[in-house]
């Protein structure tokens, strides 16, 4: 999602003094009210019935699992989505938000996880980008005046940055602060922060919380999205829990325990998919011991032949990084890998030859060559098998491909069809097929059912079952807990780039996974 459009309003004088919404009594009328917002896309109800009251001078935390509708609600709030139904009221009056400019005019600003700073402009130039007209003197930009104004804004946030510093020289946390300053210079009255502590250290987070406190005192309303229970409880004046596109509960500060919040996030039992019969596990295929990379800390895990092992955790907890590190796509800084009992130096070419398969999260970019034919993609990981006396053998390629199409029931007019014309489910089958053709015995599946329809999902589940029945080992990442429960024999749970728990078959439940995956006090 792109940063919202920023309007060109806001003169210097306004910029250097925040919008002062003095009326910040929590019990009073809300500054902004979203009522019964609905939004659907073909086949998906992103928001069913979401309501949110935002009060000046309050931190309103939105809590929910992946896919609960938090992002969609924010997109409606900042004008990136136009709601199908429901009302938005500002200061008690109904308003219509038909685009980012409308939201800007209401004083809504969003700090996304991806920042919008130009690296080789300084802090002041970034804050006032597009609004330099307040600093013109004799047709030239008065740098000193712009820096003074920037310094004033930063000071009001309690920050002593030099406004002449390039954005490129700032750390992530500092860039975030500049984004906040930029929003405030545009008279933001409602500041939305999407998981602001995801990429910063604990100390930096404390600094952020101080700034949030300051903003509250100045009457700014904060909408704060986070998975971290500790923050939620420390910051939230009001906590709204979302699930399946609807707001299910809303609490005042101190009304609830972390326990209750987690319960509200899970809600009804989603165990509509059956659990499978226990499978007998064979020999250890993959053993990883104390792996470290630039991001990961001390990852140890084992996968045996004939079992499906889940890698659970919230988005951004490091799951993808684990499978990439094992495959050799990201360099290891420490740790040992054993494959079939023999040490393995992780490097993609060797991993593939030895029988490791990686189904990447981003199928279209990393899993397939979209402009190429089914045949070329299906044989991409087993090219070395297609040479006869040193020459490429099209007939062998054709045979391998035809076998796969039959076995995986790929719906394609033929092996020459371009992969980009296939549906998501069939594309995913091709990615799986390319590793089957290579004779892989360890399948690392990163969100294998993302973006495929229900029928294709069932088909992929069946294929995974077949794989393990034939003695393959599967390590699987999924953000859909019911899917993990349905498929996995056991699971590792990740948080903050570490494995924080292991759940065997008897202990594997949605509740247990979330307990480990979210941040507790």
């Amino acid at each position, binding site marked *: 999602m792109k940063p919202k*459009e920023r309007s060109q309003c806001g003169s210097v004088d306004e910029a250097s003094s925040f919008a002062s919404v003095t009326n910040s009594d929590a019990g009073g009328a809300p500054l902004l009210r979203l009522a019964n917002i609905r939004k659907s896309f073909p086949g998906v109800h992103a928001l069913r019935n979401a309501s949110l009251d935002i009060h000046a001078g309050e931190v309103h935390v939105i809590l929910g699992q992946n896919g609960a509708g938090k992002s969609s609600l924010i997109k409606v709030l900042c004008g990136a989505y136009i709601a199908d139904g429901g009302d938005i009221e500002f200061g008690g009056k109904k308003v219509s938000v038909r685009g980012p400019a409308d939201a800007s005019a209401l004083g809504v600003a969003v700090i996304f996880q991806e920042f919008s700073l130009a690296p080789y402009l300084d802090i002041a130039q970034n804050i006032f980008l597009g609004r330099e007209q307040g600093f013109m003197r004799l047709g030239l930009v008065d*740098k000193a005046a712009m820096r003074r104004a920037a310094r004033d804004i930063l000071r009001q946030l309690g920050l002593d940055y030099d406004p002449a510093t390039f954005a490129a020289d*700032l750390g992530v946390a500092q860039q975030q602060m500049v984004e906040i300053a930029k929003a405030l210079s545009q008279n933001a009255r409602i500041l939305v922060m999407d998981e602001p502590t995801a990429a910063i250290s604990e100390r930096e987070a404390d600094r952020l919380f101080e700034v949030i406190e300051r903003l509250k005192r100045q009457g700014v309303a904060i909408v704060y999205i986070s998975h971290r229970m500790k923050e939620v409880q420390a910051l939230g004046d009001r906590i709204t829990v979302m699930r399946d596109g609807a707001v299910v509960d809303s609490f005042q500060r101190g009304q609830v325990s972390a326990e209750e919040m987690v319960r509200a996030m899970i809600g009804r039992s989603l165990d509509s998919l059956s659990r499978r019969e226990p499978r007998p596990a064979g020999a250890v295929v993959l053993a990883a011991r104390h792996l470290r990379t630039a991001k990961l800390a001390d990852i140890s895990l084992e996968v045996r032949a004939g079992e499906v092992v889940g890698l659970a955790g919230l988005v951004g907890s490091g799951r993808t990084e684990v499978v990439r590190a094992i495959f050799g796509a990201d360099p290891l800084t420490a740790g040992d890998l054993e494959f079939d009992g023999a040490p393995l130096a992780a490097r993609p070419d060797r991993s593939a030859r030895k029988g490791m398969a990686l189904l990447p999260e981003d199928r279209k970019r990393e899993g397939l060559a979209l402009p190429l034919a089914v045949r070329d993609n299906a044989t991409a990981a087993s090219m070395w098998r297609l040479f006869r006396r040193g020459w490429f053998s099209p007939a062998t390629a054709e045979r391998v491909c035809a076998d796969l199409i039959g076995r995986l029931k790929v719906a394609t007019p033929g092996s020459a069809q371009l992969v980009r014309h296939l549906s998501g489910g069939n594309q995913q089958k091709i990615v799986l097929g390319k590793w089957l053709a290579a004779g892989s015995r360890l399948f690392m599946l990163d969100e294998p059912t993302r973006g495929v329809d229900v029928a294709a999902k069932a088909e992929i589940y069946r294929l995974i079952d077949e794989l393990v029945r034939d003695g393959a080992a599967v390590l699987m990442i999924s953000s859909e807990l019911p899917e993990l429960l349905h498929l996995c024999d056991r699971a590792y749970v990740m948080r903050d780039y570490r494995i924080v728990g292991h759940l065997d078959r008897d202990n594997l439940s949605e509740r247990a996974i979330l307990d480990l995956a979210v941040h507790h006090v």
Partner: protein
Amino acid sequence: MSDQTLPGSPVTVGGYLARVPGVAFILLAMVVAFQIGNPRFLSITNLSNVGLQASLLLMLALPMTLVILTSGLDLSVGALIGLAAVIIATLLVAGWSIFSALAAAVALGLVVGLLNGFMISYLALPAFVVTLGTMGLCEGLALALTNGEPIGGFTPALEAFYRAAVFGIPVPVLVAAAFYGLLYLVLYRTRFGIYIFAVGGNKDAVHLAGIRANLVHMAVYVVCSVSVALSAVLLLGRTNSAHPTVAVGMEFEAIAAVVLGGTSFEKGQGWLFGTVLGVLAITVLRNGLNVLSVEPSLQVVCVGVLLIAALLIDRNRKRPVARITE
């Protein structure tokens, strides 16, 4: 607050040196070496010669800096200055006044700049391919207009202008210096300049800040082409004839000078004065090799070596950053 490394903390002497691009050291070393090799190197006559040679390259490399700051490239400058020279010479021979001929050159620059800029900015075509195309276009046109023959016999005023000096400083050097001053103001003191850095760094953000990012992006190519076309005056003054392909290949030196000066093809990182250093390094190298009577073809080899050497020096010498780590 005190426990954090603040951005913009005082820069130490060592830290300051680390920010100087490798080319500055190479330039210094070359000056010393050439002076030892030939004591006439630092004579007034030779220095004014270096200045004359550098001035034309500066006229191409300075606007090229703007283009490269937007993560772009303009390969057409060498062919364009040749075509502009041919057109100006043809018109002068045909009896036009100097000012009308210059107006025609400006018009040519506008057309080429708009063509380049529109395709690169609005149509999002790769700058390399677009300007490779206009390069061929300009070179072909220049050859067609002249049948490959040089045009001479126009007013001697241009050569007189090129050879003139004020207080001992050659006029072309003054022209290049004035152009540097102008571009410095534009780049660092106008909104357009700020937006150039921003377009190179994060074009989406510029667009979302309510700025017409595509227009800014296109304008950079127009500025480049127009100033290059006008610089044909210096080229004509130097050679006193318009040879259609005399300047082909100058784009190589112009781009090399910008890159030598520490401007990056990414993120809008770079500085204008670095380009001056880059131009001086290339010119001093060529001049010194001339004084030492090294063959011209070998000189080109040396420029290539210089470029690669500077890149290697700067590779591990990123500007120091005050990043906060956990």
